[in-house]
């Protein structure tokens, strides 16, 4: 499918429209933006993978604390280097778009927060998550004690089966109870 055309063919466009939550305009815009990230000589190839460093220069992602996780989660690269092809890029935009369902959003949020990719949010994941949220500066970091208490609180209310970790369904349950999530889990180009 992915042919070597700098322009999206009509068929491809409608296929993308069918498979993602994006509208035609959004896909075209994404294509433009993606082309800007490509080096000049490979502008015409569709299956070029943009390395993660390049992706992270986008203003929408530049200062997002989860930017690297986002790249890793959406990358289909075999080398696991976080590089994105155009389709990965569309995938990313689709999940973060307005019309994506809460289920799919929370699914990917879970994977973004699951730092070690083991399928559950355990203590270490939560510690990393909190650190991402509070930033690296020493004055904003939580102390060890505070961190333990916070994570204890979170596990107490999210970990329904009391196994010490938050799994996907528990996470989705929590998310379904925090109405701000859907409106804030969005990135618009």
């Amino acid at each position, binding site marked *: 499918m992915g042919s070597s055309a700098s322009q999206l063919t009509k*068929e491809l466009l*409608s*296929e*993308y*429209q*069918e*498979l993602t*939550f994006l509208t035609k*305009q959004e896909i075209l815009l994404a294509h433009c933006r993606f082309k800007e990230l490509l080096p000049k000589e490979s502008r015409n190839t569709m299956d070029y993978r943009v390395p993660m460093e390049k992706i992270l220069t986008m*203003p929408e992602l*530049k*200062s*997002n*604390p*989860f930017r690297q996780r986002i790249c890793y989660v959406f990358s*289909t690269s075999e080398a696991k280097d976080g590089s994105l092809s155009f*389709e*990965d890029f*569309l995938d990313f935009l689709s999940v973060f778009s307005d019309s994506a*369902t809460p*289920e*799919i959003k929370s*699914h990917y*949020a879970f994977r973004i*927060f699951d730092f070690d990719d083991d*399928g559950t949010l*355990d203590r270490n994941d*939560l510690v990393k*998550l*909190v650190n*991402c*949220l*509070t930033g690296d*500066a020493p004055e904003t*970091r*939580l102390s060890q004690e*505070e961190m333990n208490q*916070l994570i204890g*609180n*979170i596990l107490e*209310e*999210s970990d*329904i*089966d009391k196994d010490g970790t938050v*799994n*996907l*369904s528990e*996470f989705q349950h*929590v998310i*379904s*109870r*925090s*109405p*701000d*999530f859907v409106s*804030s*889990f*969005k*990135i*618009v180009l």
Partner: protein
Amino acid sequence: MSRQTRDGVLNPAYHDSETLQMGRGSAQRPPQQNPYGSTERTYDEGLQASGRQDWDSAEHIPMASLAGGQSWDQQPGGLSNAGYEWDSASDPGGARAGDFREQERPRLRTKRSSILRQLRMRNSSLFFRGALSSSALGWLRLTAEDTQDKTAQEEQQLIIELVAMSFYDRVRAIRQLPVSLHEKKQIRKRVLLEKTSKKGRINWYMDCRDNFYLFHRRCSTFVTNAYHTLQLWQGGLKDIGGKFGSSILSYFLFIKWLLMFSIFSFLVNFGFITVPQLFDRDTVNNGTFKGLELLTGEGYFTQSVLFYGFYTNKSVTGGSSSNSTGSLLPYDMQLAYFFTISVYFVLCCLSLVYSAASSFHKNFMSASELSRSGRLLFSWDFRVSNDKAVRSRQKNLSTQLKELLSEHLQQKLCMTFDERIKRFGRHLLAWFVSSGLAIGCSAAVYFLCLYNVNSSPWNNRSDLTKEASTLLLPIVVSLINLIVPLLYSLLRNIEFFTFPRHELYTLILRNVILKMSIIGVLCYYWLDKVVNCGIPCWETFVGGDIYRLVVIDFFFCLFACFFGEFLHKVIGTRFFPRLGVPEFDIARNVLDLIYAQTLAWIGIYFSPLLPLIQIIKLFLMFYVKKFSLMQNCHPPQRSWRAAQMMTIFILILFFPSYVGVLITIAVIFWRITPSSSCGPFRGLNVPFDVIANWIDSITLPGSQWVVWIYNNLIQSVLFFFILTLLVLILIYVYYQIVVGRKKLIAILRDHIANEGKDKAFLLEKLKKLQSQSMSSLYQDPSLEAMGSKQDIQDREVRGSSQSRTPSKGTSTFQLGRSQSLQETSNRRQPASFSGERWSARDSEHEYVLPDILEEPQQQPWPGASGSQQQDIQDREVRGSSQSRTPSEGTFPVQLRRAPSLQETSNRRQPTSFSGERQSARDAEREYVLPNVLQEPQQQPWPGAPGFQQAPPNYIPPDYPVDDDSSMEGGTLPVSDALAQALWARRQAEDEEEEGRY
């Protein structure tokens, strides 16, 4: 698109009756159940790669499509043939005990089912690490090839289900799969391929349906595309969100929502009242336009379509004179005016109730139980893209978390009696001051109004100074609205709130009281004083007043932006750095909007084109506020629960605001005599008489029902009484349902926690046992596998499926376990449980061990419908029972399922079911009943007895016993010990529970 069209529409996708049946099955399930389709693959990158080769391989697809081309009955058979042949070939003496890869197959086949939740379950099983030792991971790696097999089969199943769906459902289902786009593409390709390969008889209904869906989809994409291009302020909103986050964004979204509302009301009023009026050439405006009218709404405007007084009370015919010889049908202005206003208010009510209810439901009812820390953690605002904003948010979040943690500790602090009294006194004082202010302001406004109406000689309005003097009242009102809220926020210094949220709510409440009492006083003045003081056209006078209020309020908003925020910033940055940059006060700004909207609603009767003013006002306001925000303000310090606040604002907009307006309008319609010299209702006693006159004049033979409705329903007290009664009963019923659901939720939660405890307990035991026997068993792959939860799970199923093979220990364990769990769930059922719960239970004990060992995802969330699970399960059984010929190998697999599903499989047997198969099923039932079903019914706690009765070497009598158990002999102690331990624990737990009740 072109390929899509061909395949989707011309393809006889649904032509096999069996497929149809399946299609129906899948249609019952909402497509969003699908997302967890093939998670497994995405999670495991290594698998993914190999899986993809599978996708692309040429043999795979033809096979699939061939199978798909046949009936449903054959599909699974075709797919699982390899597995089946292997199954029959593997006799007990075979060397299969060590080969787990192959043993997994039967399980896969039996577990063939929809793509839904169990996939997710299995997925997590793969990645569970928690309490397991490293050997478990080693085992995972070993079984990687199996999972690849499994994945392929699951995908096949997915494809089959997708093919059976209607076009529209399929598109949605594929779109919602949580896999990468590339895989979605492949899946789509395969589905389409499968569909093209199916040719059957033509089914017009399906064809039409597909056509319709395609058409519908095209239309909707067109509409959404158009909508997206039309979307107002897309870029502006993005900027605001990027810099200030979603809480401030919500204010601007509220402006947008109100703007849409105003546009709608403008269109309604303009279309049904103003446009017909413009056709009427009799009433002519002969004033001159001076300019000040824009501000005061006097002079020229009083004689224009802007105000009530200008409208005619005749029927508009479009002719040049009032004799009704015009070419158009007569258009009764009285009726039009009345109906437009009332229908508009009904529509407003519906849309308000709808948005309030949905947002209330979303933000309060379901969000009640989560504490703030969880909410803070999981809802990072991904929109924020500005570097500085990100850092400030991180800082805010950190302080909030810290505060929250300390708050947690402080909550336990008790106040002394003295402190409480003091605090109460402060609150009382603050309330006293605030209500005093509100009353004082209202009184001031009232006396100003009286002065205004007594002194203003409306006869010579031409005088410019007189005209300007009408601006006094709106200016005073706007000043009050500007200053008093500031005073209210100063009260913060006397009062002391533990939770900032309470402070905010109190502030909002006081502001609402102030604004509503001012509007209430104004309404009283308009409807009582103005009506009775002899103004020739009082409606226009009131319309003018409202117009001025709206316009002046807008100017004050601009001034507040400039003087309030801009000067504050200049002073704060240049002169007194202590003051700092102002913070955007969302609550105050939103309340201003609500106040303006209330005025606009009241004004609609007096001035039908007031929404136009409102549109212009809101449009400009957006830009002014945005500019001021970007230039002057900094993001709010506290996390603002934006969504919940929005709900509160919509509720405020509904309750005091809209309901108050409704009451006012009702009073006008039913109680107030319209002025006799102007407006559409001139000459009538009350505006509602329009309807009475109209009903009397209806003579058309076909429209007697209108008269009947009017006489028997609208005018009857009994009807409204019954209606109220019905509504009350309905409310009561729903309230009872809510109470019941709450209880159910509590019980289910308890249940989940118990399952979780079981899981943790089992894992711990496993680990212990494993470490005990590690050294001796290290060489034995089958025992090492015991360490892996994954494998336990396999075995559990395998245990039943191959109980005639040497692995006696596992199978026995399985039996005991299954019974015990079944019983537990029986015992935990409250008597009043619904069918939903039961079906959930069924599916739960179908996956007995996976449930416990992995995670209780099978547990229905309170909202999840158990019937879906039931459905999945049904289909699964159908799949397994039909796909195979009645070899002995199938019996054990059915063992656990048959009891609960006997009925369903009976119901769903295709007519072509062969006698042979039937007998197989009978045999299986015979086997099942004695062993599994009977015991639980007879014994209160059969898990353990069942286990004890079945000694470690217990073999189900129907099966050939094979003594060649040397390979797996070692597993017995492990499973034994586990089952025993679990039973002991269960018993202890149960006693504890009994003690509790």
